[in-house]
């Protein structure tokens, strides 16, 4: 059977809220996007669902490139979720 899983990473305050810095997630559709993956993960994690409900701004990267909600996600990808960056 084909491996349809992706690696999910969480950073900074989002990681602290979830108490989790990485996990695996098995895609359920060939049309997965950043938005559909985040929705599915929010069903898995109360803390993520609550964060989104409370209006937390969540950004993403796919394979180490900044992404938008519409960015496609494919098996084997590394998808990261995090709050707006604050470096510099």
């Amino acid at each position, binding site marked *: 059977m084909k491996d349809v899983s992706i690696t999910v990473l969480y950073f*900074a305050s989002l990681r602290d809220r979830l108490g989790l810095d990485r996990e695996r997630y098995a895609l359920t559709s060939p049309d997965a996007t950043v938005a559909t993956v985040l929705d599915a993960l929010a069903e898995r994690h109360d803390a993520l669902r609550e964060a989104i409900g409370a209006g937390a701004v969540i950004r993403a990267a796919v394979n180490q490139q900044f992404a938008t909600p519409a960015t496609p996600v494919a098996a084997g990808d590394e998808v990261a979720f995090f709050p707006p960056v604050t*470096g510099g």
Partner: protein
Amino acid sequence: MRVVLQDEAFDVAAEVDAVAREAGVEAGAVAMFLGLVRGGDGLRALTLEHYPRMTLARLSAIAEEVSARYDLLGCTIIHRVGTLGVGAPIVLVLAAARHRGASLEAVETMIDWLKTRSPFWKREDYDDGRQVWVEARAADDAAAARWDL
């Protein structure tokens, strides 16, 4: 071009010399921005987290794009990660160019992009034990709108 991500402090004088040397005799201007951990209100330290597999590539992309846009003769970005005390240097940006306008605008652009287009997050650690993640400023946020989720 010189892009560095490190835990340790950096040597400002050595970096200024290096970028001027890289730029050569055509350079008439070197501009710099140095970011420090700003103290006050019981702040004990700042912790910089980043996305290790992504960070250096982003810094390099910023240095390359800005070098091309402003026709720089030399360019340096050094960003620290980890826990830094009050007054400690966080980030150093240098741009060498023929004329002052290009060097100053390049530095301003690089530091803007470091704040909005690089995977760093700052956490404030206070004397009383509180740990508070810094929120992105609305102004910084707007500049980054192109990859809003």
